[in-house]
């Protein structure tokens, strides 16, 4: 029960922040790929660094015992990303925003979005045995992180990553100022 409660609370906060950041609009999502609205990039870059600091702090304080790391498999991640990007730029959806838009009471998210996710899951289930094994033959290196790969202190890697992100955010801010 505790896990369900936590998931509900975190989901509530996530949906609320997606809504407040305005990421539940077709134009917001599609215009990232047209370099006209970088809100999604700003949201993601900020959450990466804040999340990274929060997770590492929790680990250091002993609040988090195990941190889930997604498996890296170069072709699998890349090809999946390309298919995902085509869908995202077509519908103006990502799976999380479909659910948030459904929560806002948008009819197209219920009728097309949620149904599409359901059908897509079945399609992927059918395709999985055909697609994944050949893709996974190249560059499947398992559940690794840059910290683990370099052997450096996680805080050092986070500091470097944070600097790159701040630089990117400043460049985005400058580009958006120029445009307006």
């Amino acid at each position, binding site marked *: 029960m505790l896990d369900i409660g936590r998931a509900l609370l975190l989901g509530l906060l996530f949906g609320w922040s997606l809504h407040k950041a305005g990421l539940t609009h077709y134009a917001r999502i599609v215009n990232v790929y047209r370099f006209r609205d970088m809100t999604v990039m700003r949201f993601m870059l900020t959450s990466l660094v804040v999340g990274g600091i929060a997770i590492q702090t929790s680990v250091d304080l002993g609040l988090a015992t195990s941190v889930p790391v997604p498996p890296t498999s170069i072709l699998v991640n890349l090809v999946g*990303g390309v298919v995902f990007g085509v*869908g995202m730029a077509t519908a103006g959806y990502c799976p999380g925003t479909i659910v948030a838009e459904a929560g806002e009471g948008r009819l197209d998210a219920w009728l097309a*979005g949620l149904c599409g996710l359901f059908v897509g899951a079945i399609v992927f289930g059918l395709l999985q045995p055909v697609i994944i094994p050949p893709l996974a033959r190249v560059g499947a290196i398992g559940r690794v992180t840059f910290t683990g790969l370099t052997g450096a202190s996680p805080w050092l890697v986070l500091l470097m990553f944070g600097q790159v992100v701040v630089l990117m955010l400043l460049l985005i801010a400058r580009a958006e100022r120029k445009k307006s």
Partner: protein
Amino acid sequence: MRWRPDTQWQPRFGTSRGLRLAIAFFGAVLVQVGAGIAGGCTSGLAISGGSVLAPAAFLFMAGIFAGGIPTAWLWYRGRAD
């Protein structure tokens, strides 16, 4: 629940609800299949994986842009809006 048209969708694709549903459904299927292949979505792989600095997240983000930029260009080519 109700229908809320998007200000950018209508000038490009018109007011047809059927067309919006068809394209949105097609995109949602692709998004889900892509997330299935890659092992996660924007939040599940890119944000949570990126927060623990997993290379998978950054490869996925590179893939998203590699797929999304040409797709958006195709939908909007030759248009000023």
